[in-house]
């Protein structure tokens, strides 16, 4: 009891030190700046997985959550060929609270106010180019002002729907980096977006997470619901859950066409609290099934994420960039199917990863000075 009272007393002391300041916080501080977010609007929104390969198409929806115009400079990064990523950019402008959408296969290029087709009706958000067939990569949109300079107004949100030709759909929220509206004008290169805003550091944009929290079903494990209610004969292949993880580095130099490379370490706990660990490299864009999540990116039926290697139905992975490295962000997609899936009717469910901490503080030396290379930057081309 005494300890509890002392504890409460300390809490009260802490509150006394902070209370007045906290109460006076400005409206923008209602949002925790220490992390990226998938459910609040931001100044940079990132769609880590965009595909147009003839089989899967991607529908992008973006909206302006503010009551004044929002402008954005968007970049497609095509990472279909490893080591040869290419970038295409375009502008988007949205009126008050305006939503818009486009298919990446077709883009959105014409304004036809007389059109009765809802697929093309609406105020044109700018000319959005299509991506070439075979595109696989990310889309990144950065809020800018009318002159094209980055601005931290936090008005953008978005979603991506991956749709297969056979009708399967999978949807995730874009990942948003919040801009620090209280940080004042950028004193350096305005086109160098520094991801260093944390609860401990009044930087420009939200720092990327220090750790990704990834709850997953063991790769290849039979889905328990389909096993019980549906068609899941092990002699016909069972009804495995197969998950794909997609990660992209937070740092990106779009001026010099240099994409980040980050080596990450993972620590897994299964349901018995048994530990597995390993690592892999995120080189520009990683999109791999869990049975290939290793340094050589080759199939390992007994890998840590697989039903053979994990030992339980589900696992919990903590994915952390190696010391001194920048951050990574991403999504995952789970695929389920009944047995003997000859007609390719697998169903896919995308979801956002959960996050913990921030890379800026996580990579510091303890004196608020980040280690070399550990602060993420997004550098966009000058106008």
């Amino acid at each position, binding site marked *: 009891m005494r300890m509890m009272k002392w504890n409460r007393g300390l809490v009260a002391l802490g509150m006394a030190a902070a209370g007045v300041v906290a109460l006076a916080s400005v409206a923008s501080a209602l949002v925790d700046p220490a992390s990226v977010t998938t459910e609040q609007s931001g100044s940079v929104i990132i769609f880590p997985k965009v595909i147009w390969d003839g089989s899967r198409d991607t529908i992008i929806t973006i909206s302006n959550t503010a009551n004044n115009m929002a402008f954005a400079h968007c970049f497609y990064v095509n990472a279909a060929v490893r080591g040869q990523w290419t970038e295409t950019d375009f502008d988007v402008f949205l009126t008050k609270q305006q939503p818009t959408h486009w298919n990446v296969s077709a883009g959105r290029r014409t304004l036809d106010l007389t059109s009765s087709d809802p697929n093309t009706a609406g105020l044109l958000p700018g000319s959005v180019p299509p991506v070439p067939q075979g595109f696989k990569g990310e889309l990144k949109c950065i809020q800018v002002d009318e002159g094209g300079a980055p601005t931290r107004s936090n008005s953008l949100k978005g979603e991506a729907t991956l749709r297969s030709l056979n009708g399967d759909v999978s949807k995730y929220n874009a990942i948003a980096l919040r801009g620090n509206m209280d940080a004042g004008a950028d004193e350096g290169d305005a086109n160098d977006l520094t991801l260093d805003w944390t609860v401990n550091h009044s930087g420009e944009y939200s720092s990327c997470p220090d750790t990704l929290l990834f709850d997953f079903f063991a790769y290849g494990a039979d889905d328990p619901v389909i096993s019980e209610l549906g068609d899941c004969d092990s002699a016909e292949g069972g009804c495995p859950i197969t998950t794909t993880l997609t990660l992209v580095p937070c740092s990106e130099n779009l001026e010099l066409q240099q994409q980040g490379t980050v080596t990450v370490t993972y620590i897994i706990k299964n349901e018995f609290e048994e*530990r597995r660990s390993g690592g892999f490299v995120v080189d520009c864009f990683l999109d791999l099934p869990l049975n290939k999540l290793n340094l050589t990116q080759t199939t390992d039926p007994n890998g840590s994420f697989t039903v053979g290697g994990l030992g339980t139905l589900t696992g919990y992975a903590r994915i952390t960039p190696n010391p001194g490295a920048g951050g990574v962000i991403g999504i995952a997609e789970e695929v389920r199917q009944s047995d003997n899936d000859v007609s390719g009717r697998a169903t896919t469910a995308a979801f956002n990863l959960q996050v913990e901490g921030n890379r800026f503080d996580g990579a510091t030396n303890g004196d608020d000075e980040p280690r070399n290379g550990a602060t993420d930057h997004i550098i966009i081309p000058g106008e």
Partner: protein
Amino acid sequence: MTTPEMGHMLAVRKGDDVMSTMKGIMRRAILSGLVVAAFAAGSARADVASDKSGAILIFPKIIVDGSGVFAPPTDTELQITNTSNSVIAARCFLVDTTPFCNNDPDTSCTVEGEADPRLYPGGTKRCPAGGLCVPRWQKSPDFRMTLTKRQPISWGASHGLLSFPLNPQNPPPTPAFGPGGQSNGNSSIAPVPRDPFFGELRCVQVDPSSFQPSTGLNPANNGSGDLIGAATIVETTPGESSDSRVDARKYNAIGIQANADVGNDGNDTLTLGTNQEYNGCPNALILNHFFDDATVTTHLGAASASVKTNLTVIPCGADYELNTLRPITLQFLVYNEFEQRFSSSTSFSCWREVQLSDLDTRPGNVNDNNDFSIFNVNVQGTLSGQTRIRPVAGNGIGNTVLGIAEEFWTQSSGGTGPGNTSSTAGNLHFVGTRPGLNDTIILSTDEAPN
């Protein structure tokens, strides 16, 4: 002789994390104050979040329909993980919101199905003549769990998890204790009380010794809570079939973060809001959606499907002790791609799942009345819209709401899921918080028998 309760306590105490927890909380109490004072610009607390761990974990929608009464056979796979490096515990509250016929309480129904029986697989009303389908809000006995360091668990809602992985009674070679000698003690999750079942689940992080509400134990997130979770709703065609199909949609559980700067008084009344024990729920929700019945064309015109969106909302506050319900009014502000603005409103008391077009028209689609909804493409004319959902203040227990959205894409033929339909689920976006005390969650003291 060791009773189950004693065994549980011993298991919890085998690790050193329980004791170190107190020190950790004290350290954080000091540090948090200094941090807040030093960095005012970034000091205020976060809102709720589905992408970060929390001390209250909410699954707004759980479905079980094993026999396919309302839809293809369906169950919900639930995952919860302790993200911290300490033993934690949680008290969980499952709420049964399955609507029932007021003249036959044993028969489950849906408001939409009774209004438009074409929505039922059988095509006929389920309630006896003269019956109405009315909402239910009935709490099941709460259950408790202890999770070891960074331990994930999973279970199907229809079966529960009667025996946790690290059960001291496990026969060799199945592990009974984790590497630190900890176990899940006598943790147990009961199956949902009925089939079909609609409902929600909330879990509150508690002290593993007293089972009273507490802050989190992880300094990396300033003690804001250690629980993350996800729910996957899986539908399948029944049994062996040459045309078997499955469909799955997934959302992250919503976490409400504890305010370690304020601390937690440990009683069963949880206060949510600015400078309260827990962060306040959002001032408004934002849903970006395709307007109902829009035909979305992809693959350069080679594929198309008709889309509908279902919204599920729950009050942020709840009184599990007295089962008190009070209506919440929601204001909807809808913008289409022409920036044209529309508005509507509705109210609910406990849990509501509704197709967007039913928000402002009669339930179901009798006489194509959905075509006249402001959430329908036939009214809006554009494919996508942005809807801001603002709960009206003024209710004592619950002022704000949380929710998820589901999309159902139906093709005229082909498709991957049952009924040529494929679905997605997603978390809504949040805007702002409200000053002061917004919501209260009052826990009950009953516990499911183990």
